């Protein structure tokens, strides 16, 4: 797991109060018992951690831990390209 992925997992772990060891990339958020409140806490926490805005339309479609990692990666990449001259 990359350092980037680990940072996302760490935020999810804190938000959902679950050990990082259970947050495998293929795990479904609902199967982990992660409800809407924990997802909101996680998304806002990730926005703070990575200084990005996660698009609401895509947040609504999140299903797995990997989806979350991919969403943050895309937002960070988009921020980087916007910052380019």
């Amino acid at each position: 797991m990359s350092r980037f992925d680990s940072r996302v997992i760490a935020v999810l772990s804190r938000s959902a109060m679950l050990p990082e060891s259970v947050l495998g990339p293929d795990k479904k958020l609902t199967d982990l018992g992660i409800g809407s409140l924990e997802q909101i806490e996680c998304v806002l926490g990730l926005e703070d951690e990575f200084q990005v805005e996660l698009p609401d339309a895509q947040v609504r479609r999140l299903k797995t831990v990997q989806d979350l990692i991919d969403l943050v990666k895309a937002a960070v990449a988009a921020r980087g390209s916007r910052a380019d001259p």
Partner: protein
Amino acid sequence: MPATDRELWVLNFFRNSELHGALLMGRLARSLSDTALLVHATRHCATEARHAAMLSEVIESMGGRIDPKVATIQERYSTKEGVTTALVDLLVLSEVLETRVLATYRTYLERRDVAPAARETLAAIVSEMEREETGEHAGWIDEALEALPRDAVEAAERRWREVDAAVVKEVHDMVNARFPEPETQS
């Protein structure tokens, strides 16, 4: 009158939903930057947390078990529409929910079989909510929404009202199927 399983489930549903609302508003109160908005959001959080505490105490006083696993109305909204973190959605959702909660508590109090302790608690919550409707914090969500794009607000209102109507019907049908009313109930 002993507490029925139906009433205890309903009180747990109310309790968990109030707590969910408080935690959500509390999260909002950690993210916003406008001071006036932060005052209102923090107060809203405290009010809903107090309602959750009152409902917790009444469930315990009735000899019931507090079940944190009873899904909240907000979880049911999210199951239908997905999770949102957009301010416009969170504010509209709070407003739709306030209206729904007040109407639900009032309707519940019209039943003849509400346990006295539950009736007293719910009546106290309704009175407080009615006072809030005209108090110094009334209309703070409307004011906050006025600062946001009108079309986004209207779209969110349409969407969440539709979700609300569907969820209310779903919960009503589920409760009636799980806890059928006695035939003598009028």
